[in-house]
């Protein structure tokens, strides 16, 4: 059986949305149970009093990266059937910068605001509502941003090719970097004055 399961035709594509709900439940559960429904816990990463975001985010990234490489190695996943975002350099950077400002203003990102709203955090609900306005504004203003949106098209490059190394070696270095970062984060957490929240 070669993944992705849906594109291989083993299971009817109509099951895809059922899997979407179940996978979404796992997603929401993992975020909430890790503490991502709390804006002050999330934002702690930027002040050094709580690095839960760094720990959860990079653990998830290395687990998924290593997992996909193993599945690919064992012939269970065909990398070519997976969705890889095309890179448009200018809009990726400018959009990322705008998101970073929204992150520190609002204390959430889209996924975490959904989880916060689900457990009754009204600031999470407010952020989630604000996103609809932001998306609407972008959609209406699209003609002004169209050029930026499509500029710097690079295809769908992989990060390891930038360094001229294999995906496996890149992931190995990423794991080492993440472990280093986890130790660094714990060290900073001990040094920084605790914030009660």
């Amino acid at each position: 059986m070669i993944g992705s399961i849906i594109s291989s035709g083993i299971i009817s594509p109509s099951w895809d949305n059922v899997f979407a709900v179940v996978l979404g439940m796992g997603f929401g559960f993992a975020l909430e149970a890790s503490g991502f429904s709390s804006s002050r816990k999330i934002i702690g990463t930027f002040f050094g009093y709580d690095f839960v975001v760094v720990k959860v985010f990079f653990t998830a990234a290395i687990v998924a990266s290593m997992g996909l490489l193993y599945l690919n190695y064992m012939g269970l996943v065909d990398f070519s059937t997976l969705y890889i975002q095309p890179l448009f350099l200018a809009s990726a950077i400018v959009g990322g910068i705008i998101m970073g400002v929204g992150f520190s203003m609002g204390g959430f990102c889209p996924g975490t605001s959904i989880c916060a709203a689900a457990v009754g955090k009204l600031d999470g609900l407010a952020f989630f509502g604000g996103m609809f306005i932001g998306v609407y504004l972008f959609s209406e203003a699209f003609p002004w941003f169209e050029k930026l949106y499509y500029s710097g098209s690079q295809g769908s490059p992989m990060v390891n090719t930038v360094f001229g190394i294999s995906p496996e070696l890149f992931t190995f270095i990423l794991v080492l970097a993440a472990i280093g970062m986890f130790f660094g984060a714990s060290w900073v957490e001990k040094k920084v004055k605790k914030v009660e929240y």
Partner: protein
Amino acid sequence: MEKINKDGTTYLNPYLGGVILGTVLLLAFYISGRGLGASGAVKNTVAATVNVIAPEHVAKSAYYSQFAGGDKNPMGNWLVYEVIGALAGAFLSGLLFNRLKFKVEHSPKITNRRRLVFAILGGVVFGFGSQLARGCTSGAALSGMAVLSLGGYITMIAIFGTAFIAAWVFRKNWI
């Protein structure tokens, strides 16, 4: 493996939480061939809503027409179902860890009202940026990093790098 908070609720050990999140992400790729996302569901909902109110406007728009109008079904999108699941999953976690409570979180230096105004504005700004970058922290950064996409890494660095600087600007809201 659990960390007890001041209010008596517990969070998972962050590394265990990360392993669960990474495994769910891995399963999403294995089963559906795609990563997890959040802002895409908002985009589809907005496009579907505008399509109900002003279908001609959607047909003429170079942006909306990619997702709605014609025989497209934006609310039948995978991400819409996934986000409905995420709401349920987070609710179950809140129930399990005794965290279901109406609450506004902010620094003691500011009022609830100021916090909520900033939360809405943050959502507006983040929502806008997520459309320009074709995805947010989940869909572009985390899912992109899992498949070693260069775009995922660039977006991740842009988000966290800017947020780190912007946090200092908005520090009164937080510490």
